[in-house]
């Protein structure tokens, strides 16, 4: 838990308790809680999936998720955020990520939740490997934006 504003950002291996996250973000001053439940699909490009393995660069992934939470507060009039991503082996239908956002009014909660999952998918170092009957592949992903290359050092004057 983040002591400053009661946000919650975690990487876990156990199943995600979505109802507990909703309860965590919801308070008397809120008029809306919007959630995103990302779950393991039973096929990939028409190929039946058996299960997925998720791995993360854990300290960096958690830091990047915290940055997303801070950016959500900066951009949207929201109250609390919970973002929990599960790692390890996940079966079809299980929740891999759950996001809950509370706000006094629903537009900010919808917008912030969408921002959170879209940004996470582009910038947080987590990977999934998809297992099929006849093999396994690393899922196609998105390349995070790298900083612009530093200009060549100027000669000392």
């Amino acid at each position: 838990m983040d002591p400053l504003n009661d946000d919650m950002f975690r990487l876990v291996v156990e199943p995600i308790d979505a109802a507990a996250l909703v309860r965590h973000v919801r308070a008397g001053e809120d008029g809306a809680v919007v959630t995103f439940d990302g779950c393991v699909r039973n096929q990939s490009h028409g190929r039946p999936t058996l299960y997925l393995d998720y791995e993360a660069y854990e300290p960096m992934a958690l830091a990047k998720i915290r940055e997303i939470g801070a950016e959500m507060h900066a951009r949207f009039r929201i109250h609390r955020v919970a973002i929990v991503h599960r790692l390890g082996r996940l079966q079809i239908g299980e929740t891999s990520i759950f996001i809950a956002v509370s706000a006094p009014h629903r537009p900010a909660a919808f917008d912030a939740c969408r921002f959170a999952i879209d940004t996470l998918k582009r910038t947080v170092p987590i990977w999934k490997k998809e297992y099929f009957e006849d093999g396994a592949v690393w899922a196609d992903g998105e390349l995070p934006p790298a900083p612009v290359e530093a200009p060549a050092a100027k000669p000392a004057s």
Partner: protein
Amino acid sequence: MRVKVLFFGRLKEIVGRAEDFADLADGSRIEQLFAHYGARHPELARFRASLVASHNHEFAAWSTPLHAGDEVAFLPPVSGG
């Protein structure tokens, strides 16, 4: 100087390990560190355009200078969520 190096996803499979320590000349940059591994693993070198590097948990330019004790990771396209 010695730096810690991490590989993830398919890069870990190409290199055959998740973690390593590399000894580099002072003044080396991430580019030189990657070349050090690319020379040993040509398949890794071919991924140069489709990976990003991080330096002490921040995405970093290839020209980032390294210092003893730094942690560098090579990250393939991310697929969380």
